[in-house]
């Protein structure tokens, strides 16, 4: 190839972000074409190794009876999946997510309320903001211990109730309903702050004149919330809903630390971790994990379909 052809193809190249100065010799051109890839080698390598390769492997494992260690594995077709959907105890863990879903709904409403209240003039505003947000920053294990003590017999909760003259001998983590509700309440305590801060940020990005104008028109706080705040924070609200649903389905830390999945508090992820790392059922665990992944992707996709939101795009 001669130098001329190289030049011709340079001029033919579509317009770039940066104008191409002088026609470059062939070597420089190849080099320039390689440049973005040099920047992307490490990120892409990590992305493929730790995200996509596992997904592909997981799909492959899910059709086998592999135990995760032995070199031997047998292709078993859809056996893992039929086991998953027919053995009811393997599927029941999904009902536990229901508690966390209800908790998420409460959490979103409460976060919206506090974000609205604290975006207007309130005394000690920064103090309240800090208090509400801080739990989100606390280590999950520490939170688990704090609340184990909170729900203990004669622990924090019982002592507080006794102050009001109510003496309970209720084992808060003793029955499935009460234990799951308690754990879901802890997850509200922990994650409320994140939703709150996201909402607060969104509300504060709404121009202040809108409130002033609406006040002149005689709007009260509820009207302002309904017609200015709610539409203004819709993108964040949608994001929060996605995060809440996928968070509820993949609840792990708090129940694992506090009850280890006992008394009917086993969540899907706890079960999968146990299947894979305690009972060495890598094949079955992979099938389970894949089912969860598909459900979460489906929820996200549905949600995007129902509430189209162009702001979520990356580029």
């Amino acid at each position, binding site marked *: 190839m001669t130098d001329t052809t190289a030049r011709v193809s340079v001029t033919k190249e579509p317009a*770039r*972000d*940066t*104008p191409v*100065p002088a026609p470059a010799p062939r070597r420089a051109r190849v080099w*320039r*074409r390689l440049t*973005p890839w040099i*920047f*992307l080698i*490490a*990120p*892409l390598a*990590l992305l493929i190794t*730790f*995200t*996509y390769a*596992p997904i592909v*492997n*997981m799909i492959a494992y899910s059709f086998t009876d592999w135990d995760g260690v032995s070199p031997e594995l047998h292709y078993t077709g859809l056996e893992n999946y039929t086991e998953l959907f027919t053995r009811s105890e393997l599927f029941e863990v999904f009902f536990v997510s229901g508690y966390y879903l209800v908790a998420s709904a409460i959490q979103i409403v409460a976060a919206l309320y506090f974000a609205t*209240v604290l975006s207007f003039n*309130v005394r000690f505003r920064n103090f*309240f903001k*800090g208090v*509400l947000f*801080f739990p989100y920053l*606390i*280590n*999950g*294990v*520490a939170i688990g*211990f*704090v609340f184990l*003590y*909170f729900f203990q017999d004669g622990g*924090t909760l019982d*002592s507080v109730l*006794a102050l009001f003259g109510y003496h309970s001998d209720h084992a808060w983590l003793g029955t499935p309903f009460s234990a799951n509700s308690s754990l879901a309440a802890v997850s509200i*305590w922990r994650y409320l702050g994140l939703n709150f801060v*996201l909402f607060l940020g*969104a509300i504060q990005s709404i121009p202040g004149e809108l409130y002033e104008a609406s006040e002149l028109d005689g709007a009260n*706080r509820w009207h302002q919330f309904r017609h200015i705040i709610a539409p203004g924070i819709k993108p*964040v609200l949608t*994001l929060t809903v996605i995060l809440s649903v*996928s968070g509820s389905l*993949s609840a792990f*830390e708090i129940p694992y*630390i506090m009850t280890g999945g006992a008394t009917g508090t086993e969540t899907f*992820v706890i079960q*999968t*971790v146990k299947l*894979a790392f305690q009972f060495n059922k*890598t094949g079955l665990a*992979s099938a389970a*994990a*894949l089912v969860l*992944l598909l459900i*979460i992707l489906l929820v996200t996709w549905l949600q995007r379909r129902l509430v189209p939101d162009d702001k979520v795009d*990356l*580029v």
Partner: protein
Amino acid sequence: MTSRGTTRRALARTGVYTSLILATIIVLLPLGVVFLTSLKTDKEMTGGSGALTFPDDPLNFHNYVTAFQDGRMLSAFGHTAFILVFAIAGTVLIGSMTAYAIDRFTFRFKKLVVALFLLAALVPGVTTQVATFQIVNGFGMFDTLWAPIALYMGTDIVSIYIFLQFVRSIPVSLDESARLDGANAFTIYRKIIFPLLKPAIATVVIVKGITVYNDFYIPFLYMPSQDLGVISTSLFRFKGPYGAHWETISAGAIVVILPTLIVFLALQRYIYNGFTRGATR
């Protein structure tokens, strides 16, 4: 009309403050009680000291000593710091490079690359661990500090996104004038883009730092050996030996929470900004 309006407003204000105070109590009470418990002696605890009673000696730091020594908290802090430094440095480097490449170049398969990163954000890490485990194991990183470092660096889509926002706000004319002066893409990245990304770097350091410091799942799965505890897993191990010794467990929990509190009080404003920027992708 006006008087009714003002009473209604006063009522609303009372309601608002009541709710805020109630929320404050709900947040602070469990933490406060654990702090009180951490100052109590073994005897007080077995003597049936109620959760809300004050410790006999408010300066009894004995439990902290026990937690620190027997719980091996010092080495746990060391491991956590080691992981933090590498994971954060890696995340900053990888995130900024990815953002630079995506924003400043047009290249073949760019759309595909962006889609790959975007799709990865939708995959919750916990679901793929079963298979990720085999890969980490295959690299011989299992039960070393490098396993969590590699996984945290992996692809933090949030930090890539934060960097992307900032790279976009840096005028392309800066790149161009540098290029006219003979700088190549790497020089431009190193001398112009990276230094201008300081606010984004601060955000990523804060958000990533908190995530890594608090993470339990990854160190729990990938570093089971006793000698490799990070603060989460070391604290988790309190559950066995100290089973009923709530005063020691409480001291351990406070030891872990305290640094977070200090950092939070010092950097409040940046932390809020970081999270709003980090999560509202």
